[in-house]
């Protein structure tokens, strides 16, 4: 178990829940006492050795942790740098999301809340929440954008199979952002009995901090696994995809105080950090895609899990202080990376971490000779049908890219 020193660059936020100028608690007055109650409950639980051992036990016996670290020899020789994958795809439910969900539902149980609400984009957080709610015998309602329900039908069925009620978010872009709106509206109306299990390092204080702490296990494990293989050294670069940014926060937390460079990869159509415009939505101040008047814009991405116009406030802070950099990739680059990892290593990644790999392919000259760790945050089963449809429906999208050729280095995201 890692203790979080206050000297860490990813330590505790201040009392107002700020990471630098980002974060805070911008919620309707109705929710202020609930956020304060949650913060108190989390502080006490996280300081309680019994809670910590229950959580560790769940991660081990139920989620299957620790997750492995895989060296990709074929991919490494093709790209010209050494590639390691942190295998969050091998967790129960198929992604890193289960870490946070087990922490929060265990906390909900401790707080005596019997009803769980959650939002979901790709469906991974929804499936993980439905899973944990089934395990703990909690009532579960998952809000999901109508558009996402259509493109992630399998995960919708999974959630229903697990006993959750899936409610469509019908307003706005009908994607993840709108699912968050609906979940917050539900919480505003049911706050006395309901626990809001937020799925990323976003939202009002204490969520960005708490969710990162529940995912810290990714970074803690990866650091010691890397050190074991690399004779005590760390990778030169740690890469993770960023929508809200929970898997990135988890793995970055293990390396932020080392020499490793940290790279978050955003979809070009949802690059909140890339645009560097601060704003407030869903409870915190961060970078936010918005128009000149402050209306939140709709993110565009092939990956439902990254289809979010904001980003967790700690990522905005890490970008602002220059400790992490954030790079965009296009949908086409992502689809190519999805196929590349499948063919070279026999691992079908989720479209979300395929963003990280897409950047690595694009940056292969810069990365030549280095050691790079990618957080493989989820498996791609949920995306196979969608990618097949894209490829079948639009043969021109199927770019046969020879990644060993210098000629394709300009395959960029402008």
């Amino acid at each position, binding site marked *: 178990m890692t203790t979080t020193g206050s000297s860490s660059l990813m330590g505790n936020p201040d009392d*107002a829940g700020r990471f630098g100028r980002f974060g*805070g*608690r*911008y*919620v*309707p*007055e*109705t*929710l*202020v*006492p*609930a956020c304060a109650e949650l913060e108190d409950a989390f502080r006490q639980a996280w300081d309680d050795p019994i809670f910590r051992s229950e959580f560790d036990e769940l991660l081990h016996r139920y989620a299957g942790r620790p997750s492995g670290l895989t060296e990709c020899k074929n991919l490494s020789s093709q790209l010209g740098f050494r590639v390691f994958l942190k295998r969050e795809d091998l967790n129960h439910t198929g992604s890193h999301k289960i870490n946070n969900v087990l922490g929060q539902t265990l906390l909900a149980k401790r707080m005596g809340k019997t009803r769980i609400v959650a939002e979901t984009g790709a469906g991974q957080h929804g499936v993980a929440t439905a899973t944990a709610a089934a395990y703990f015998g909690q009532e579960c309602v998952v809000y999901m954008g109508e558009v996402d329900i259509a493109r992630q039908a399998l995960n919708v069925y999974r959630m229903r199979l697990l006993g959750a009620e899936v409610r469509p978010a019908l*307003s*706005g872009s009908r994607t993840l*952002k*709108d699912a968050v*709106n609906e979940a*917050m*509206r539900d919480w*505003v*109306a*049911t*706050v*006395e009995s309901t626990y809001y299990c937020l799925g990323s390092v976003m939202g009002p204080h204490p969520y960005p901090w708490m969710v990162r702490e529940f995912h810290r296990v990714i970074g803690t494990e990866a650091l010691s696994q890397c050190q074991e293989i690399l004779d005590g050294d760390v990778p030169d670069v740690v890469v993770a995809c960023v929508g809200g940014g929970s898997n990135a926060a988890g793995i970055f937390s293990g390396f932020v105080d080392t020499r490793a460079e940290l790279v978050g990869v955003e979809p070009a159509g949802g690059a909140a950090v890339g645009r560097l415009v*601060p*704003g*407030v*939505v*869903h*409870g915190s*101040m961060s970078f*936010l895609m*918005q128009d*000149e*008047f*402050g*209306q*939140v814009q709709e993110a565009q991405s092939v990956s439902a899990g990254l289809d979010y116009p904001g980003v967790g406030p700690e990522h905005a802070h890490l970008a602002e202080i220059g400790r992490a950099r954030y790079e965009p990739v296009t949908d086409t680059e992502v689809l190519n990376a999805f196929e590349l990892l499948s063919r070279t290593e026999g691992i079908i990644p989720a479209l979300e971490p395929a963003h990280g790999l897409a950047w690595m392919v694009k940056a292969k000259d810069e990365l030549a000779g280095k050691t790079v760790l990618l957080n493989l945050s989820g498996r791609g089963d949920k995306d196979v049908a969608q990618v097949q449809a894209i490829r079948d429906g639009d043969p021109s999208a199927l770019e046969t890219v020879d990644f060993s050729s210098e000629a394709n280095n300009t395959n960029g995201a402008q």
Partner: protein
Amino acid sequence: MTAVGTLERHLRQRRDEGRKLLLPYITGGYPTDEWPRLIEGLAAAGADAIEIGIPFSDPVMDGPTIQESSTLALGAGISPVEILARLSEVEVDVPLIAMTYYNICFRMGHERFASALKEAGVSAAILPDLPLEELTPWAEAADQAGIETVLLAAPTAPDERLPRIAERARGFVYGVGLVGITGERDELASSAIEIAQRLKNVTDKPVLIGVGVSSPSQAVEVCSVADGVVVGSAVIRKIIDGSVDEAIDFVGSLRAGLDSI
């Protein structure tokens, strides 16, 4: 002691004359072209002040009715700047209050937003996602510009919090009538009268109750304790299902109800 602003002075005076206060809400930009006339009609129908929503893309405190009017207004291309420009041309003898979400204000900048409200003839602002703990940067700019910041007080607030909210509120204290989002309800929640009483116990500022106050009889019921009501979704519903004139008539019926007390 901060000087009492235009809105609070106006509401106090009317309350102290024994009148129950009526504050209808409309969505700026909805219905397109008719909404400035709607404001004038509501004032004539007996509103004591009028709340004008500046639509935001992600209104988490609002239920389906106000989401719908906001979406329609945004879809027609209305901007905060245009709403304020049109408001400055509206001729009414009651105070106007702008309601929007914090990012609209933050994006424009606190000082600019406050002075833009002032220039448009708006007296006060309501920012439902800006609680006490995050209020200071905006509230200082608003005080400086002479814009009164109305604060919400919810049924979930512990007793120690209410006096702090009431103390910092300008214009009036907006008691949230139920645990939930805006929208029409068949019956008044018991929490509406409870929060009104809890607020009356800690402040002599005007206490108005909104969220879930949908009919003349509900307005009368809650005004057994409260100084007045804010009615939003029920007004918008009249426009969606009917017309601007039906909404004006509805506000007239609210006025008649309150005057019968």
